[in-house]
């Protein structure tokens, strides 16, 4: 199963992180998220520019890593998020790519996955992984749009931040 991880920052500076677990058919199995975090002024001053990375890695990242046990690999969108997660699972940045390729390619750490007929995605792992794992992901990319869940995840986190009863 694939775990989609994202940290969302709302307009009023609330932070929420979540993980959406997708099964082999592309169907969501679970969605877990952190309650919205609204840093105080003093916390903003103390953490300064490191606030987001602190929240993402120390607060959200650690907790999410614990609850994403079902996921074989954690996928993130932002490159900086790649460093936030300290987990024993492989973490990879997955973004859409302009590179058009007839077939998927992989060099141990980075690869291009063809999505449908005219789309492709670039995957960059935090460390070298097996060809087998890459093939599994690229096979899943044939079954469902592996980039699309990020949109749903961020939409859900946006709702969490804006919802009062979250």
């Amino acid at each position, binding site marked *: 199963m694939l775990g989609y991880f994202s940290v969302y920052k709302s307009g009023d500076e609330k932070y929420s992180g979540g993980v959406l677990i997708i099964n082999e058919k592309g169907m*969501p199995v679970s969605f*877990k998220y952190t309650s919205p975090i609204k840093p105080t002024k003093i*916390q903003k001053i103390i953490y300064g520019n490191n606030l987001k990375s602190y929240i993402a890695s120390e607060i959200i990242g650690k907790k999410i890593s614990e609850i994403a046990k079902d996921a074989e690999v954690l996928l993130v969108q932002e490159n900086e998020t790649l460093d936030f997660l300290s987990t024993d699972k492989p973490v990879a940045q997955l973004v859409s790519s302009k590179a058009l390729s007839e077939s998927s390619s992989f060099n141990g750490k980075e690869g291009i996955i063809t999505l449908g*007929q005219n789309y492709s995605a670039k995957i960059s792992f935090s460390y070298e992984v097996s060809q087998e794992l890459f093939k599994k992901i690229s096979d899943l990319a044939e079954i469902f749009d592996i980039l699309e869940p990020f949109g749903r995840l961020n939409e859900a986190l946006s709702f969490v931040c804006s919802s009062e009863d979250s």
Partner: protein
Amino acid sequence: MLFRRQLTVKEIDLEVYSRLNTLKFDNISFADIRDVSPFFVFIDRSEELSINLIDAGFEDDESATVIAQTDIFSSDINEGCTFDDTTVKNAVLGVQSRVKHEESLRCPDILVHVGPEVSINSFSGIRTVIKEKKVKCFVVKNPVKELKISIEKKQILQMIEVIVKEHNVLISDLAFSGFYPQVPVARDVRYSWAGKKLYCESDSMPKVYMNAAGFYNSRRNERYLKFIRDPVTEEKSGKRNQS
């Protein structure tokens, strides 16, 4: 005549009248009178030990020249009010003699500077809890050029014929747009299109998944989905039904 000294505490917009506690000045001392503003008692050297209370007023033939001045001291004194004890030097008295001696000023209690109450709050970081929400079954499918199982042209043509019959369209208007692997099949699955992408949404987790083919009607700008009969899958489901 009453001499008084007005201290204006600018910072807190407060006016007080205070008395001089001590003043080492030869011919001036203070009367200790309660409930009124302090006033001066002059000792006239020409008439030793003769004390004239200014408060009682002067007679016409009195030799002392007194210039009444309410603001005896320079305004610098005002700033002294932020301190418990202040020494004022070189003030000018109303008698036009310069005070070269020292005077101790004591602020009234209400002006005693009280430091802000300070408590130490340790910074305890940021905490959050994990929550879980139910998610709708939703998947987006991209078309692929080929499936892992081989599909014969004959099968594609059969599907087109079915679409022509069902939707009353011309074959020439239809175009094959791609295969969609493992599309969920259930009564409550709702299918929709966004370009070539196929959206499948359902309220419950579908148990059956089938390969499908997509077709596009350029005249009507419509898309059709036809499931591909897979002998292997059908055989499996047939065995399941028998058991």
